């Protein structure tokens, strides 16, 4: 009895479908299916390499477009133009037609060229500008040298005329010489002027000095502003230099050296008139270049701004298009009929939707050939598809983090929705902390839309689990009320069941014990507040919380074990019920169920009224195993026989657990063999015509006769049942397909039995973490209070008030950081473990593989590349 529709209780029903799509509309069909996101296509061309596939050419072309788009993006970032991000919630992109994609490709091609040429001319212009600027500096600085040098012409001449003359000879004598304006040329002195990077100056000087043996006169000045190096776009500090030297050859040498030191040499006239003209000329040219530069820059920016408006959309379109062709590459092509054949998994209940989508696409294209979708029977294991909604998504993620549930087994996330937050709350029980947590969770849910855009990873993680936090906080409020803890203080909600038995001559400091106020009144809800602050509080709460942990653990595990019964019934494996579930259940209950009953029974007996010694349950349980029949302190009459009986019952279950299932399976297998049945996997070995595999396969896949005349691809599909055998062999679906191997089944069952019996003990003990963590949480918050608020509340006066405000801030911050965040995370991890290990091991197989449909939505969400384009 298949349910009318898929529920979250099990993974959705899946069907293997075969699609026959006309070649002309294949792209549109895949596009539509991608929008739908309900089909997972199988790769039918597994033997073809990526290069041999049909649509590789298209993918290459799209890769190129994508590269161009990324180039635009890089250019925009360089120019500082903001990208208009695409908000998928608001903008809906219509599926593009082929011509649109072609246009986009062409357009981006031409745009790329245009931007590249603009960039190129921009760079040349920039270079020109730098050169001119440098020249201007040289002119300005060198002019200074000349003006100064002309004053010393005589002196220089003197030094050149007479090598022996001291350099600084009687300066005043020549200072006002009339021949100041005389040229250097008449003295046969030439010069080289240029610009060099400042960090190279020292080396430059040294080389010059050495090669020319000091026959030079170098003058330099720093350029105050850094110049931009056009090649690297980085500012460089440069110096202007002018070198005077003697003779043409030496000058040529200097030029060469400067070039080798990558200094720029500029032409400077020594005549000041000409130099003035040069400066004017340079300035004019510089202005021209700058205005052209500005124009180029503006054009480039305008172009990029225009692109920036639609770049994100293009990027998404290209990404989708590429995904479409990637998918099409998985299809097999029937040349004779010009159709593409696809195979894939889809949810059975969504088949009508897929069918109508296909119909729509065909109609829109005006094609007479319909696309055909065929459900095919297969013995392959379908993928596990667990539908989620906003609320269950995070819970399902917790489960999936452990493993993918087997197809159709009870979804482990169903009980987790309650048990995980509840067990968390048992450890986190404090009303105050819970309320803060609830506020945070509610705030995250109320401002869901704006907060969704936050990309800060840590917050995104918490935000993702906002509904878990909500349920956890709600349960924590309940457990906080039960524990009667609010920031480690108690609430006097009801009248206490205790009253202090104060002696007549009471002195402060005297120990007082409480007595029951009224034998017929008990504290109705939660822990009596009289225990708070009592000297023996921990004695009581430890015993209470420890027992509670055992009972809750027992309940959790029993519940989980029951789910294995539901699984066995659903998969129609009665042997799992008789050979696994039932003996396991009896074993567990006869030991730990009995313990729980004893705990509850012990609570219900008024031991003082009947005047007996209450027995220690731990000792009782230990003696039950070590010395069956020995009762230390009796709990109830006839206890001896009950315990021996239960122990025997438990021991008997072990061989049943061990042997029933494997031997039953063997018996079943042998019976089937005796009747002449063969297993499906054995077919090819049975067949006498080993090489005629096709024939066998076709005989099996009866409904595929119509296509077997076609080419390679179709024959391959017909062989499908033989492929992927590795895929099927895993898991432990004994007797359900696959070869029967008694040894394997036996070993598996032995492991299962040992594991189960040992786990019953260790898992029950593991639940004691509930007690340990709730104790730690309660004690920690008590310590925090006594170290901050406790003393602060005792200080009186205005100083006390100020002190209180400060201390409260500290108290609140520490509460949030340590008690809520840190303790919360630790309690969550412990609760997670209880769900994953203690609970799941009782019923879930986790032998499935996840359903990963071809979906644009998922593609866009998961793509790292597109992330920066999506708002």
């Amino acid at each position, binding site marked *: 009895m298949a349910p009318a529709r898929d529920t979250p209780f099990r993974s959705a029903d899946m069907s293997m479908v075969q699609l026959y799509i006309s070649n002309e509309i294949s792209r549109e069909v895949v596009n539509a299916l991608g929008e739908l996101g309900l089909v997972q296509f199988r790769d039918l061309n597994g033997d073809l390499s990526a290069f041999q596939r049909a649509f590789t050419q298209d993918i290459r072309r799209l890769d190129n477009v994508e590269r161009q788009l990324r180039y635009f993006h890089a250019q925009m970032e360089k120019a500082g133009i903001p990208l208009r991000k695409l908000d998928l919630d608001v903008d809906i992109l219509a599926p593009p037609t082929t011509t649109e994609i072609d246009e986009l490709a062409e357009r981006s091609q031409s745009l790329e060229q245009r931007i590249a040429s603009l960039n190129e001319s921009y760079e040349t212009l920039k270079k020109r500008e730098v050169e001119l600027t440098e020249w201007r500096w040289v002119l300005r600085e060198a002019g200074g040298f000349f003006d100064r040098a002309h004053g010393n012409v005589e002196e220089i001449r003197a030094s050149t005329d007479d090598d022996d003359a001291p350099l600084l000879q009687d300066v005043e004598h020549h200072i006002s010489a009339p021949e100041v304006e005389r040229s250097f040329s008449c003295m046969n002195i030439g010069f080289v002027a240029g610009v060099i990077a400042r960090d190279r100056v020292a080396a430059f000087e040294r080389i010059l000095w050495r090669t020319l043996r000091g026959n030079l006169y170098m003058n330099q000045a720093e350029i105050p502003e850094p110049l931009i190096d056009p090649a690297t776009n980085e500012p460089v500090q440069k110096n202007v230099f002018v070198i005077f030297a003697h003779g043409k050859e030496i000058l040529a040498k200097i030029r060469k050296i400067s070039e080798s030191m990558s200094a720029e040499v500029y032409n400077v006239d020594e005549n000041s008139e000409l130099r003035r003209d040069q400066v004017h000329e340079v300035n004019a040219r510089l202005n021209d270049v700058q205005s052209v530069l500005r124009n180029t820059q503006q054009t480039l920016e305008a172009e990029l701004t225009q692109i920036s408006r639609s770049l994100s959309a293009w990027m998404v379109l290209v990404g989708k298009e590429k995904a479409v062709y990637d998918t099409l590459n998985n299809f097999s092509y029937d040349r004779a009929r010009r159709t593409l054949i696809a195979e894939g998994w889809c949810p059975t209940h969504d088949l009508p939707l897929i069918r109508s989508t296909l119909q729509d696409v065909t109609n829109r294209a005006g094609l007479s050939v319909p696309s055909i979708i065929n459900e095919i029977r297969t013995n392959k294991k379908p993928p596990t598809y667990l539908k989620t909604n906003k609320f269950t998504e995070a819970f399902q993620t917790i489960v999936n983090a452990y493993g993918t549930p087997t197809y159709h087994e009870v979804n482990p996330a*169903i009980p987790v929705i309650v*048990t995980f937050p509840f067990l968390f709350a048992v450890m986190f029980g404090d009303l105050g902390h819970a309320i803060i947590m609830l506020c945070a969770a509610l705030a995250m849910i109320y401002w869901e839309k704006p907060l969704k855009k936050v990309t800060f990873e840590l917050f995104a993680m918490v935000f993702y689990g906002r509904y878990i936090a909500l349920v956890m906080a709600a349960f924590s409020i309940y457990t906080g009320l039960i524990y009667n803890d609010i920031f480690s203080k108690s609430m006097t909600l009801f009248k206490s*069941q205790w009253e202090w038995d104060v002696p007549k001559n009471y002195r402060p400091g005297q120990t007082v014990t409480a007595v029951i106020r009224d034998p017929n009144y008990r504290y109705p809800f939660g822990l009596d507040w009289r225990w708070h602050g009592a000297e023996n509080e921990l004695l009581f709460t430890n015993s209470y919380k420890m027992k509670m942990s055992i009972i809750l653990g027992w309940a959790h595990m029993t519940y989980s074990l029951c789910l294995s019964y539901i699984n066995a019934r659903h998969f129609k494996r009665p042997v799992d019920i008789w050979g696994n579930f039932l003996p396991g259940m009896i074993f567990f209950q006869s030991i730990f169920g009995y313990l729980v009953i004893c705990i509850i029974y012990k609570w219900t007996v008024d031991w003082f*009224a009947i005047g007996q010694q209450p027995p220690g349950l731990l000792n009782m349980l230990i003696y039950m195993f070590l010395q069956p029949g020995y009762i230390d302190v009796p709990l109830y009459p006839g206890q001896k026989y009950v315990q021996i009986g239960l122990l025997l019952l438990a021991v008997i279950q072990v061989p049943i657990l061990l042997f029933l299932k494997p031997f039953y399976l063997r018996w079943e297998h042998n019976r089937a063999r005796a009747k002449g049945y063969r297993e499906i996997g054995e077919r090819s070995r049975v067949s006498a015509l080993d090489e005629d595999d096709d024939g066998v396969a076709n005989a099996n896949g009866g409904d595929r006769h119509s296509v077997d005349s076609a080419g390679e691809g179709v024959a391959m599909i017909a062989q499908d049942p033989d492929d992927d055998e590795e895929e099927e062999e895993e898991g432990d679906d004994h007797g359900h397909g696959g070869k029967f191997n008694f040894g394997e089944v036996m070993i598996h069952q032995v492991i299962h039995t040992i594991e189960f019996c040992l786990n019953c003990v260790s898992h029950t003990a593991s639940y004691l973490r509930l007690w340990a963590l709730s104790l730690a949480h309660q004690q920690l918050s008590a310590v925090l209070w006594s170290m901050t608020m406790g003393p602060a509340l005792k200080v009186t006066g205005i100083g006390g008030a100020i002190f209180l405000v400060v201390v409260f801030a500290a108290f609140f911050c520490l509460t949030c950081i340590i008690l809520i965040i840190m303790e919360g995370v630790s309690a969550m991890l412990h609760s997670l473990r209880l769900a994953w290990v203690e609970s799941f091991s009782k019923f879930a197989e986790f032998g499935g593989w996840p359903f990963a449909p071809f979906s644009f939505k998922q593609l866009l969400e998961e793509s790292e590349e597109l992330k920066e384009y999506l708002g």
Partner: protein
Amino acid sequence: MANGWSVITGLLICVAMAVAAWFFSPKGENQVLWRSSIILSIACCFLMWAITFLAQLHPLIAPRRSDLREEYVHH
């Protein structure tokens, strides 16, 4: 008022609530989710309350303290 029978009363109330949750869960494909979550929650809460109540039903030890203030004692 609140004596040993309260646990039974509480159980009955919780069972009634669970039955009501079974029938009044919103219809639709998430009905199973509603039912399982609500009933499990009721069961968890009942268990916790009942355990706490039973633990205090016939206490073996009584609260004891020696820092009671005089003014508190006589009221």
